[in-house]
């Protein structure tokens, strides 16, 4: 019997509840313990109910659902691959900001991403410059908010 993602998510919340209960008991004072413990117990109980429901639901659907799930597997794999790629881009951009700051990484990221999406050089360059100009004019000039300059070029 193959279990669905919903089961694992419910299990994740169950673990969160259990972790909350164990941690709360170490807080020492009842004032610090009361709400986290109460809330963790609630999460634990509700998540346990949800885990049981998911398990039961899966058991009821039986083999028919398992066949359907196999058919959807390839679709899920493609989605997960796209998610992995887009997460990689987002994480890479965050790292670029951390190292190079907003003013360098913003046009760099916009340009690289559009080129990766097979846009023309002209579109990628114009879009990257427009995005930089917009960020600079709105934040640095308009709102007088200094943006992060990055680790390499002197973090603000």
């Amino acid at each position, binding site marked *: 019997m193959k279990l669905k*993602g*919903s089961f694992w*998510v419910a299990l994740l*919340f169950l673990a*969160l509840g259990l972790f*909350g209960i164990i*941690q*709360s008991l170490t*807080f*020492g*004072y009842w*004032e*610090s313990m*009361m*709400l*986290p413990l109460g*809330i*963790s117990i*609630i*999460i634990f109980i*509700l*998540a346990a*109910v*949800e885990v049981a*429901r998911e398990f039961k639901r899966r058991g009821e659907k039986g083999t028919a659902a398992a066949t359907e799930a196999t058919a959807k597997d390839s679709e899920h794999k*493609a*989605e*997960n691959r*796209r*998610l992995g790629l*887009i*997460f990689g*881009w*987002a*994480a890479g*951009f*965050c790292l670029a*900001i*951390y190292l190079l700051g*907003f003013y360098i990484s*913003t046009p760099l*990221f*916009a340009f690289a*991403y*559009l080129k990766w*999406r097979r*846009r023309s050089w002209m579109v990628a360059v114009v*879009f990257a410059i427009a*995005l930089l100009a917009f*960020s600079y004019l*709105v*934040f640095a000039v308009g*709102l*007088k*908010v200094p*943006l*992060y300059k990055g680790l390499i070029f002197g*973090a603000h």
Partner: protein
Amino acid sequence: MLEAYGIAIATLFQPLNLLVMLVAILIGLIVGIIPGIGGGTMVVILLPFIFRMPPEVALILLVSLHAVVFTSGGITSILLNMPGESFSAATLLDGFPMTKKGEGGRAIGAAVTSSMAGGIVPVFLALAMVPLVMPIIMAFGQPEMAMLVLLGISFMAALTGGSVIKGLISGAAGVLLSLVGYHFVTGVHRFSFGTTFLYDGIELIPLLLGLFGIAEIFHLVMRGETAIAQKAVVKLSGVAEGMKDVWRHKWLWFRSTIIGYIVGIIPGVGAGVATWVSYGQAKQTSKHPEKFGTGVVEGVIAPEAADNAKEAGSLLTTMALGIPGSAIMALFMAAFLMVGVEPGPGMLAEHLPLALTLLLGIALANIIGGIICLFAAPQLVRVASAHLDFLFPVILIAALIGVYVATPSPLNFVMILVFGIFGLVMRRHGYSRPALILGFVLGGLLENYSLLSIKIYGPFFLFRPISLTLLVIMILLLLYPQLKRGISGLRGRLSGT
């Protein structure tokens, strides 16, 4: 009293004040549209500049800016599924599905009209109802506040449509996340894993932008979609239709406005609860509750009306009692003190014309801001039909800048990505992201009020009359779907026999 009204109107219509108001409205509308840069952030940024201004100019500036942030914030929720503030999150439940169905213009028309009218009417209610509402406010002690917070979170849990249990888990997880960090009563560090970054707790903006903005963009790219809305309506007729919708659902709008106003009056809770309670009553009283969340216009009208309506009530409480009605009103209190006006019971007596000027300022700013939004709506709707290749970098950059401006720590970039994935998981498996946000926003208040209640009234604080009433309402609300099913089943059996 009439003389004070005369002074207030004359002050408001002075050329300088009108000019300041117009500039503030434009800033407020832009700030509201940009995700992550909430009205609170903008108020904080402006605080250092108001020192040397005359009190009425400084406060008109802040009040006008803040009044229209919610109006344009709804547009971002509707088009991009990114709430500018946690309070705008209710709008996206139906606003964004409407955009996906090609009814973005209609949703904006309904949201702006509802928000604009919802911001005007309560001002006059505030002016008329002061003597009536004061006894109610004074009757709310800590136990009642704690119950009101729980009621707000329960409303959210009930709204998740499919499963109340998943809604409750989400709300409770939000409360648990709000407890991360230093506990001010005992000094214990909770769930911070010894890292200094978590000593002050998890910041709201990365959580908000991650759960909604980043998760949504991840979802769209993952599904291989090319635009948020393939056939976004770019016609003024859609906007006009939305305006007519508000008239068609005028009683819903009126109820939501009153709810927003009353919740806004109650100090310390109003900001987050108003929109969700209002959305909840819209769903519960609807003839087709099952359609909520799929893009029905009532789901936009109700939270938008309440969102703006609470501001007049919130400002009134801040000025009359010196108790901030919301987090932003706490900033307004600082602004009042900075320009030499002390909010509190004495303010209505000593500075009545100023108080009336500010309340009327909210109404005027809403009218001007609403008209600008309605005329600019067709252009704003175009955002939704932009290709995802361009939207992904724009949304990601806007979100990251928003996070950095609000919480200047690069570590929050990691948080926004983590919450983005978490939001995606919640979205895919039917857990309520709005419930989590509400739990997070109100978690601190819940802890404060419940601790104070136990210390003052003992463990039986729940059995005070108002608390008990709120508790019964909460239980009925959570059991309502089962009760409804049970009653209709019983009816079916009775009619069958």
